[in-house]
């Protein structure tokens, strides 16, 4: 590959992937150079394969659903574990306040 082929490589690749003309500074060279044309053809095929990969689904971990749902259970448990002490503390504070108010109430002799 000549230096100009190497400089043209990304533009040839872009042209192949996007189905557009090679960018102007390298268009003349790419149209005349057999190596760049071969590279264009190879990259066109690669682009097709890349696009086809979007239709391909890999198999994820079998326990993915279990992991997610367990984590959500954990979320709820955390929410519950926070809610309970807050409720108990609020009940104790209000009871203490009620007792104090009752004890400190002004009494008539």
């Amino acid at each position, binding site marked *: 590959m000549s230096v100009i082929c190497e400089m043209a490589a990304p533009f040839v690749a872009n042209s192949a992937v996007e189905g557009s003309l090679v960018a102007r500074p390298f268009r003349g060279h790419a149209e005349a150079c057999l190596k760049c044309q071969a590279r264009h053809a190879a990259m066109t095929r690669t682009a097709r394969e890349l696009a086809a990969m979007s239709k391909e689904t890999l198999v994820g971990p079998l326990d993915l659903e279990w992991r*997610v749902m367990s984590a959500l259970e954990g979320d709820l448990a955390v929410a519950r574990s926070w809610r309970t002490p807050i409720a108990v503390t609020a009940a104790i504070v209000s009871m203490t306040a009620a007792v104090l108010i009752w004890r400190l109430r002004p009494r008539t002799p």
Partner: protein
Amino acid sequence: MAQVEPDKERELIARAKAGDRAAFGALVREHGNEVYTLARRLVGDPHLAADVAQETLIRAWRALPNFRGDAALSTWLHRITVNTAWTQRKRARRHSGPPLDDFLEVAAPMGADHPETAGETLELRGRLRQALDSLPEAQRQVVVLKDVYDWSHAEIAEAMGISVSAAKVRLHRARARLVRYLEASA
């Protein structure tokens, strides 16, 4: 790919938004592999991809009340996957070195039903996966989102928190690397 019918999916989303975890479980079953696939392509390492998929789906559950349905659920999940992959990768880099194992799952390529070209396609697909994995993280993510999932430059820039021109430059460099890698491995 998700197989559930659009009406059924809308119903599952509505129930999940109302807090029905069984409905969300059904959505996880439908979209889990799809989310994992994108995560795997973005981060390369299968174990990290599993963590990304899990975290993505947990984030999705938490954000579900904000899902307006303007885009398809899979598109919305893809966006969360990209963000999650980005943060998980940074976290993983802080806590450990590069992954030691990086096996490639074998999935049936499109066109595998044509025996005369199936072998060639499989071979190219294998080299392509390795080429993608050889790219630096940021470049791989741009190629995957643009050339595999057909996102626009603007969508990529927004998801990755970079400018549109930076996304274009990364793509340009990544494609040049891909060409070189594929030629060297041919």
